């Protein structure tokens, strides 16, 4: 920033020397990513060992493709992720709108609750949701399964969407919406033609975040899932009970690559929209 504003740039004067900083950064990255790289590396190992390298093979990926239960878990995760994301994004967006554009009783309470929900220990959320479902849905004949997982995921992702969309709304000039109304747009048209296009990057970012959170959630899902509704994280956990196998490594690698691709693609999309 100082370079941009034309101020002096103090390069390494009276600070930690550049080379020490570089070394420090490398160590941090190694610490963060080495385990993941090891995992990916051994997913291509030709033997069952996850400790010694015996040669390159893709047999564990083939095993992955053959395993019906893994397919099932993957489809469950997708079903839950997509449905929960759609619902959470709609609710979260309108919550954000209400919190920034309207005054109502208990607004402060609503606001605080949204933030509190993001730091709530997952185990508490999981247990309380289970208790809630047992008390409400199960008497109505709705069993623990995909439906309860979706509801649970909507519940814990909605705050994240709200916060992300809200940040975007806060940075948006309110007079744009007034200008739209001034030019004859009723509230619905104003929302569709002005507000939504302008907050869309925020909405997309929120949706992406919700999907990622939903896709790899373990703790909450563990409490509210039922027979045959295992999601991918639950499936991996149950496989691990029989020891770490290269299949798990392969599966984890696929999930990892997919997640990175999603986030990378999403952020590219957002950046492009920002610039246009």
């Amino acid at each position, binding site marked *: 920033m100082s370079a941009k504003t034309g101020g002096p740039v103090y390069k390494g004067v009276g600070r930690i020397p550049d080379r020490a900083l570089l070394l420090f950064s490398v160590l941090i990255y190694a610490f963060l990513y080495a385990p993941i790289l090891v995992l990916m590396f051994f997913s291509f190992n030709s033997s069952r060992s996850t400790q010694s390298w015996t040669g390159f093979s893709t047999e564990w990926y083939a095993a992955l493709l053959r395993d019906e239960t893994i397919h099932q878990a993957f489809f469950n995760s997708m079903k839950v992720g997509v449905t929960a994301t759609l619902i959470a994004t709609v609710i979260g967006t309108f919550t954000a709108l209400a919190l920034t554009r309207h005054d109502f009783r208990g607004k402060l309470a609503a606001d605080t609750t949204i933030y509190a929900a993001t730091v709530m220990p997952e185990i508490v959320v999981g247990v309380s949701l289970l208790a809630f479902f047992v008390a409400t849905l199960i008497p109505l004949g709705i069993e623990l399964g995909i439906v309860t997982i979706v509801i649970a995921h909507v519940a814990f992702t909605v705050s994240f969407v709200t916060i992300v969309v809200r940040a975007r709304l806060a940075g948006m000039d309110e*007079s*744009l919406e007034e200008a*739209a*109304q*001034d*030019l*004859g*747009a009723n509230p619905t048209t104003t929302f569709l033609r002005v507000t939504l296009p302008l907050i869309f990057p925020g909405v997309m970012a929120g949706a992406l975040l919700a999907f990622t959170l939903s896709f790899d959630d373990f703790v909450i899902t563990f409490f509210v899932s039922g027979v045959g509704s295992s999601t991918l994280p639950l499936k991996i956990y149950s496989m691990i009970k029989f020891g770490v196998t290269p299949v798990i490594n392969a599966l984890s690698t696929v999930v990892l690559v997919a997640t990175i691709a999603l986030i990378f693609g999403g952020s590219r999309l957002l950046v492009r929209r920002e610039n246009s």
Partner: protein
Amino acid sequence: MQERKTTEHSPTASGAGPDTGREVAVELTGVTKRFGEFVAVEDLSLDIYEGEFFSLLGPSGCGKTTTLRMIAGFDEPTEGNISVAGEQVRGVPPYRRPVNTVFQSYAIFPHLNVFDNVAFGLRRAGVQKDEIRQRVTDACEMVQLAGFEKRRPNMLSGGQQQRVALARALVNRPKVLLLDEPLGALDLKLRKELQLELRTLQHEVGITFVYVTHDQEEALTMSDRIAVMDSGVVRQVADPATLYEFPHDRFVAGFIGQTNMFSGRVEAVEGDRVTLRTSDGEKIEAKGQEAIEANSEAHVAVRPEKIRFGGDGDNVLSVTIEQVVYLGVSTQYIAVRPDGEKIVLYQQNSHDTAGPAEGERVSVAWDAANCLVLGG
């Protein structure tokens, strides 16, 4: 706060502006706006005539934007009524009012290009495609933006964005155009240019303009009539010349142009001739604007260019020249009275003789007719 009704009661206040036969475009009757305890606009009554360039002038925070927002429909008056083109607008949402606004921040839609920005209102009104194309092109031409239709707003300068905002509003042919300090964010040169352009444009399209500004010079240059506001109250409504020559009260006299003010006790009243005695014993002859009682406190004002050097006039004061500022067309003198009060006067530089120098003791004089008794 003392409230002054200025339009109806005093002939000097309403000025030579509108003929009585003209239609009223915007009518405010007893409009008050409160935000909680705070009174932003108080008992405001105004008639703004069709085709008029009407300005709301006042210092920042005096309630100009609030007034405009009530006409546009973004805020509803706490009390009182507003009519636009003869129709009561209470409860009518902004998108159904026959007015358009040029916002202080321009509020150009950043996700739409110039064409789509300008076409926004026409599309909402369901105008045919061909007609939209024609009208948008015409509007862009009118504000000298022809050829910029495909541009994104972030590729436009401040002045160009201003023009887009103007075209976007005018293209809808509103009954009334509301402008909230539209030139406030521009540099001086561009502002002067656009002032003239706006004035010409208003004459061409014949739409009623309600123009908000805190710049008295701008208001005087552009307006047919001006309402001077202070702390939510309208002090005076008049055409620029009347406002300058016959300010109604101390606030208006001080806000519009430069002025010299004196306070004192009224000694005698004879017709509209008022004799005042200042605290240091000086006698001042002035012209009354409304009934005033002997022995009451009063304030009088005289414009700097109405004071001349010499001992010839209804009022003569002896002063010491403190500062001489050469301004080209005229010279400004700052003189000090024996009691330390300052007097400012201007002299045209058309005389061959040089004026007094700094430190010189001279007499200054002015006529009672140019020295007004002020209210407030």
